[in-house]
């Protein structure tokens, strides 16, 4: 028998310092990430808050949120006062001051006015693509979780989902450009020269021309929907599978058909889960730039998407501004100066608030859902 006294340790435990060092190192690494993230948010908030919030009621600079985007003119008047005016106010000023000379005039593209155009554009793109992706994605997920048996078809679908999920967003941009912008069929009486194929429809002189939708809202929505589809399918299937098998068995045992079972006993219980995970997908859709660069986005546009339209359907076939693309333009295409800071940091701040709200919302919802739905 060993000496029982060796069970009592003298001084610190063996390997105490090694243990401490390892923990400390890993802990420092972890908190470094947290600190870097915090610094990043702090920087954006510090520079963004003064743009968006004001000291006077209503405390929010509604002009920045609700005005259209314009070119900024910066100049000094004869008294040495510096003016910063967006293009529309600038022309008013010139008109009203007539002869008075101005000095040191500089112009900054995209830096004046507000960002209502990009905000609305991003909202339209997000809504459109989520409607498409949810419709097709949830249907596909229902098939995978409720109907599918082991078959080569299912295997192929799973491989396709796995691969689609990994494709870089810029490749989706290429795909959207070559398919939705240049190749999908449209019904028109005047097919374009570059149409891949025209099929007569025998109704008047209308033909089905494979010439694409041009760079437009609908092309952007379709591209984004394709990109987000695997995420929606995977998340929806998970939610559907989380519904206990017993629910289905009970319903089927009472003589309901498969579809009745799905409609009454599966979908209602999985809907909260599906919607929660789609909220996270929205964050991704709203933040993507590469797929919409060539399919939908435009840097400058005078009207809001629904203004100056001949008919409502033109909304779908018109280009839109988008917040991420606007930020890209502000960051890459114009020189940084003190006059562009308002537009730059303001847009980023608004965008980040948007994304943060969505992702916090989904985190909270998910936590709530987990607490509530326990089978």
């Amino acid at each position: 028998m060993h000496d029982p006294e060796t069970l009592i340790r003298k001084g610190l435990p063996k390997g105490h310092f090694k243990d401490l060092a390892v923990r400390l190192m890993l802990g420092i690494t972890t908190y470094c990430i947290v600190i870097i993230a915090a610094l990043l948010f702090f920087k954006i908030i510090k520079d963004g808050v003064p743009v968006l919030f004001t000291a006077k009621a209503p405390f929010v600079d509604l002009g920045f949120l609700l005005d259209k985007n314009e070119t900024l003119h910066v100049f000094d008047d004869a008294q040495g006062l510096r003016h910063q005016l967006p293009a529309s106010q600038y022309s008013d000023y010139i008109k009203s001051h007539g002869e008075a000379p101005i000095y040191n005039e500089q112009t900054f593209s995209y830096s004046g006015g507000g960002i209502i155009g990009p905000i609305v554009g991003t909202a339209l793109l997000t809504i459109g693509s989520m409607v498409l992706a949810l419709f097709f994605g949830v249907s596909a997920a229902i098939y995978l979780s409720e109907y599918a048996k082991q078959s080569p078809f299912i295997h192929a679908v799973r491989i396709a989902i796995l691969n689609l999920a990994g494709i870089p967003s810029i490749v989706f941009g290429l795909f959207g450009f070559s398919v939705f912008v240049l190749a999908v069929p449209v019904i028109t009486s005047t097919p374009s020269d570059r149409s891949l194929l025209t099929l007569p429809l025998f109704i008047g002189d209308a033909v089905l021309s494979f010439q694409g939708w041009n760079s437009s809202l609908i092309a952007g929505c379709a591209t984004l929907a394709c990109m987000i589809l695997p995420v929606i399918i995977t998340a929806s299937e998970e939610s559907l599978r989380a519904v206990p098998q017993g629910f289905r068995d009970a319903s089927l045992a009472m003589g309901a058909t498969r579809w009745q079972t799905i409609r009454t006993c599966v979908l209602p219980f999985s809907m909260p889960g599906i919607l929660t995970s789609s909220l996270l997908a929205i964050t991704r859709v709203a933040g993507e730039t590469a797929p919409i660069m060539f399919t939908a986005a435009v840097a400058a546009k005078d009207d809001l998407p629904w203004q100056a339209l001949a008919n409502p359907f033109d909304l779908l076939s018109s280009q839109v501004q988008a917040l991420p693309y606007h930020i890209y333009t502000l960051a890459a295409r114009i020189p940084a100066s003190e006059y562009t800071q308002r537009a730059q940091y303001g847009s980023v701040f608004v965008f980040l608030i948007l994304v943060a709200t969505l992702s916090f919302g989904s985190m909270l919802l998910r936590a709530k859902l987990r607490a509530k739905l326990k089978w």
Partner: protein
Amino acid sequence: MVNHLANIADPLPPAIRIDRLCFAYQAKPALHGVTLDLPARQVTAFIGPSGCGKTTLLRCFNRINDRIPGARITGGSIHIHGIDINRPDIDLQELRRRVGMVFQKYNPFPKSIYENVVYSLRLSGIRKRSQLDESAEAALRSAALWDEVKDRLHSSAMGLSGGQQQRLCIARAIVSQPDILLMDEPCAALDPIATLKIEELLHQLKEQFTIVIVTHNMAQATRCADHTAFMYLGKLVEFGPTLQIFQTPHDPQTLAYVTGSFG
């Protein structure tokens, strides 16, 4: 409470001395004042219905319960060879090396058979190849596994059968020469043949170790254990030589349990 000590004539001092031990998982008490002396170099079986606290008690002996957040001893003490194992200055690693444990579900590491066996030797910093080889062979022989695996020591332990994996776990637990071996329903996940082998092994092992075994299987307790403790609802109901517990129990609850009236 009956004084069990009077019933036991034992030349060796008790290996584990449990005194009015109370234990709780967060707010939920699991043991209520268990007092018990476990004889050295013998096999003691804990029996009782599910949730009666026998596994909890077993897991107190090597303080593996510390892993569970909120689990704590609320009263009483455990002495192993006269040392209170809940003193703050106990060397926990040393304690666990001296009190080996085998779990209900065999759980070898996803490493080779050899690496599994010498794991605890490597932990204590032994690097010499010859010493490792020697100890591994001895442990595997003690666990009656050597002949079956000597040709494939370096293949993965996951390729062994369930019974072999459990014996590997026993070899892994005894390689560092512990004093006490705790076994938490070691045969629960095994088929009858493998169970038989483990039980034979127990008879050999008790020459060297003090063995505490938790079991659901009363027949197993009668076959292997020298002493048996019957627990019910977190209390020790009766403790004594196995034959006595099964044939002439003092307590009506024990009688009801061993005759199969409940549990």
